[in-house]
């Protein structure tokens, strides 16, 4: 890892700086958490790829020294392109929602004004808002779900952690089984033994 760090520091340094900057943005709530965490995950993967002895050195040995960097650059450009399109879609969606909200707000203001001035609104001229705006209390909790207590939240978090860990173990085992990931440590040895026990040739 130290060798990789020495070799790849010109790439790692800006990546690390970007990571810290994104982290700060997320922590200070200046960037949408979803987008921010996405970036952090992508940067972590990028940094790990540049630190680990697998698989980039193998690719470099097979296809040439500059290939991994070029590949990562292409991936980064593709990633940026996708993020840009994704943001356009989000912004467009939000614009439509803002317009709707504007209309609803205008209608609501009109009603309020009429109520204050004592003029009853005719049914046909002021239809009810098509999408009722939920109150903050109802918006916070989903329907059909019991109110969340601290214990419930803890249980939910435990369930989620267990589920995620199980999925990761399964995928890692699949990688080792197919030979795509070399077995690492004791867990790798256990998996290899398991896979060896689950094979047999025709015996009759």
């Amino acid at each position, binding site marked *: 890892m130290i060798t990789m760090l020495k070799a790849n520091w010109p790439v790692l340094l800006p990546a690390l700086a970007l990571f810290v900057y994104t982290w700060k943005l997320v922590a200070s709530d200046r960037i949408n958490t979803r987008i921010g965490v996405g970036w952090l995950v992508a940067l972590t993967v990028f940094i790990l790829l540049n630190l680990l002895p697998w698989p980039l050195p193998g690719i470099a040995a097979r296809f040439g020294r500059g290939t991994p960097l070029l590949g990562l650059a292409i991936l980064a450009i593709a990633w940026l392109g996708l993020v840009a399109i994704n943001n356009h879609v989000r912004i467009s969606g939000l614009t439509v929602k803002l317009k709707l909200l504007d209309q609803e707000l205008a209608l609501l203001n009109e009603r309020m004004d009429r109520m204050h001035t004592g003029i009853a609104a005719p049914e046909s001229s002021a239809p009810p808002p098509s999408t009722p705006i939920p109150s903050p209390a109802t918006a916070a909790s989903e329907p059909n779900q019991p109110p969340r207590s601290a214990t419930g939240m803890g249980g939910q978090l435990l*369930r989620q952690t267990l*589920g995620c860990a199980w*999925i990761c173990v*399964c*995928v890692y085992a699949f990688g080792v089984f197919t030979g795509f990931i070399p077995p690492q440590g004791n867990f790798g040895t256990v998996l290899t033994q398991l*896979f060896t026990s689950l*094979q047999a040739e025709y015996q*009759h």
Partner: protein
Amino acid sequence: MSHLFSVLGPVIYLAVANIGAGTALMRLFPAQARPREYASGIALLLGQGIYASVLLVAALTKQFTLPVLLALTLPFVLFALYETRCNPWSLVRKLGIAGQAFFGAPLHWKVLTVVTTSLLLSLMASISGIIEGDALAFYLTLPKIIASAHRLAPVPGYEPFMSVGLIAEMQLAALYLLGMPDASVKLYIWLTTLTGIAILGAICSNAGLGRRGRLLAVAIAASSSCIVILMEGKTDFFAAAYGLCAALFALRSWEEPIRRASLMLSGMFLGIALVAKLSYAIAFFPPMLMLLFYPRLVALCQHWREPHQMAPRVLQLVREGAWVALLMLPPFLVHFAKNLIMVGSLNGVQGSFQYFTSETTRHIVLNYPLVLTVGRYWGQLGNISVLLLAWLMLAFVLPARIWRAQPKIVVLLLAGLLGVACWVAMLPAVPIPRYFLATLLILAVPAAWLAERFARSSDVCDNVVVAAAVFCLYIVFNVWSPQVFPVHIASQYLFSGQDPAQSAKLLNINESLSRDGYETINQDAAPGARVFLASYFRFWLRPDLIQTSNNDPENATFKWEPSDPEKLWRQLHEHGFQYLYMDGSQRWKEMIKSPPSWVTVTELYPRGAFFGTSYGSAYKLDFRDAPGTVQWTTKEVAPGAWQVIRSDQRG
């Protein structure tokens, strides 16, 4: 003209004919019972089932010729074109809706969509991939000789295998008759696989899964190596596709107004699936009974204390069962007729399924379901996706209340588990997912539903579920693409205008070397010459040479005995063999080393390496002043159809 058109033309023609025939049959049912979504896919699979039986009758009556095929298919091609005349716009509209949904989805779901779709489309490249052993021996060889002989002729050496269902093989024979070259019929296997996976999406939709759930179910199918490896030329997915259609209509039959029609359609598909893969009788038939009659059984249980209400309900159940049985019957009738003609009994010879010792079998049973996902047992040919196991287990970490109001998901889960349990109970020593693929794919629906629910619980879970699917799909592409679906080689093969000999060089290197050995005999041998194949495989041989090669009785009597080295040479001479092909699976090298003085052995392939390589060796045999007389010879009994007959019957 590039190969793309010569390869795509027959496939598109037959697919359109199937859609036409399927649509015409669906017209017999009320409009409500016909699904609007995936209608073309369902019609394609229904048409396949109908045509397989019709073409089998044509082959049994020795009328499997191009004019007959065109007469049977052309009206339905025209009907399909007429029916779909307005559909280009609806297709564009559907694509537009799908595009909107795609662009509205979060980035990581977009990535999963792109990766899954790319993998499924790149399976088309299997056209240039390696051909699996059984396909080289029987499953692609039989269609080739049926098309050439214009009749149902047994594959010499594999006569007992003629009792298997030939639903897929008859369609591949039709493609050969339409002029598809070599192993390019694998494109049709790919098309059927895509359609079957689309039907899996339809089941998900019917069971209440959203777009993401459907995508996850498709990802399970796409990352299953037992499905990817079938692209090597095996036809097991045909049965799975029909089975999935049967399951779809079984679920639709829960809606009372269309129950009768859905039951009938389900019965038809079930019959086709069972004939296509007889092993489905063990692991797929019981779950199907559960899916079909669950509502009625629930009603019976609710009224079991009221005798006056029980009788009509039981009668209704029996009546519905009779309808299903009746609609299952037609493909079986043709199948049994074929068996009576070809092997002399309804079932033929049933092989033993005791593949392993009792100790190994016990180990297999104790390690279910791991053996299905990470086992490497003989004959397995791939596993079901690890995502199935990973996501099904999420049932233990999600709250129990999520199962409420989801009867279809619960019944699908129970039906799938019942099917697996039946399989383990009946055939414990056969942990082969492709033998009960439809049952395992049914389980993909609750697995995808659980994953969808789990992904909704938080952003992290959402990312983990998607990342797991993307990573598994990437591994599948990376591990199996070079051998099974080499994308780069396939694009060269499809888009180049080379002659067949040159394009054959673009096949997987193993296929190319194997083919070369047979090709030297093809170029040298006279029509109907006898070739002794000391190999399990014969696909690359000329159809007339395959028909006159060594048969099952000859294989049983021809044995190499070092104590009497001349015996086998005498037998070869008396049975009229002029060529010998030997590959690494046979050990007759000693025989070739020291032939008697009255035999001249000329090496045809590979020249300069006399005792051959693992890819095989081809020899020409010249008998001069040999002891004994030639007792067997060959005769062309009809254009393209050859038979081995006794020499004294030739006149």
